[in-house]
């Protein structure tokens, strides 16, 4: 058993794809139409055969409640690894991304939290 796909819930798949590729820098891997929505995944550009991130449409009402509760508390739904969190923070700020938490040391790592514009906070971590 291994982990091949994980997901973030998104309110709008098209907008999510735009943000996750054009702003965050991921690459679209799979786009399979499934009626109203798609099986839509992105991967890291330097790990194209690595774990896929599914941009999962919010078709289930209770999931929206869960997402909103996390968002209101500022709790990240997912965490992505970066080599230099300060550099990534500055790059994304210049692109208009809103951060709820600037780079912050926590133990041996440094964390920052951004708003993905799709209903989630995403945490960046520099190990």
């Amino acid at each position: 058993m291994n982990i091949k796909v994980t997901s973030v819930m998104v309110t709008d798949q098209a907008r999510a794809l735009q943000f996750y590729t054009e702003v965050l820098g991921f690459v679209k891997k799979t786009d399979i139409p499934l009626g109203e929505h798609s099986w839509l995944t992105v991967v890291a550009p330097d790990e194209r055969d690595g774990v896929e991130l599914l941009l999962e449409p919010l078709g289930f009402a209770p999931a929206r409640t869960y997402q909103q509760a996390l968002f209101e508390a500022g709790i990240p739904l997912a965490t992505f690894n970066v080599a230099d969190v300060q550099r990534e923070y500055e790059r994304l700020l210049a692109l208009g991304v809103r951060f709820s938490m600037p780079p912050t040391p926590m133990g041996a790592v440094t964390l920052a939290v951004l708003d993905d514009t799709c209903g989630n906070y995403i945490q960046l971590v520099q190990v």
Partner: protein
Amino acid sequence: MSSYYQQELHRLRAIVFPHAHRRQQVLQARQFIEAHYAEPIGLPDVAAAAGCSRFHFLRLFRQYYGRTPHQYLTTVRLREARRLLLAGASATEACFAVGFDSVSSFTALFRQQMGCPPRTFAVRAGQKSNFGEAPRPEAADSCAQNASL
């Protein structure tokens, strides 16, 4: 106004990591390992890089990283061995280049961590990409997906 998450993070940090200078000591040790992993370094060397006693350093490193300095060193060596294997190095070349001193121990450790021997890892990674690109050290082949690094 900070969020609930931020408040909790700061609260936990004050409890678990109250001394900012210790973070710097641990980071110095990590940088030392990253710079000298190919050399025969041991706990005294890494503790000296952090500027503290061996016993204190061992405890400190585990507190911050959840593993011992030796486990961390092994992780770095295996990471670099994967990179060399994917660049075409033999198992023997990779073994000695990253600081291991026994091919059989290296092969056994690699198999334990990656789920397959070094040579198999390189072959599978080279066959995997569906983007038509050269394989990368992070390529998730069937071995790497089993890895706990």
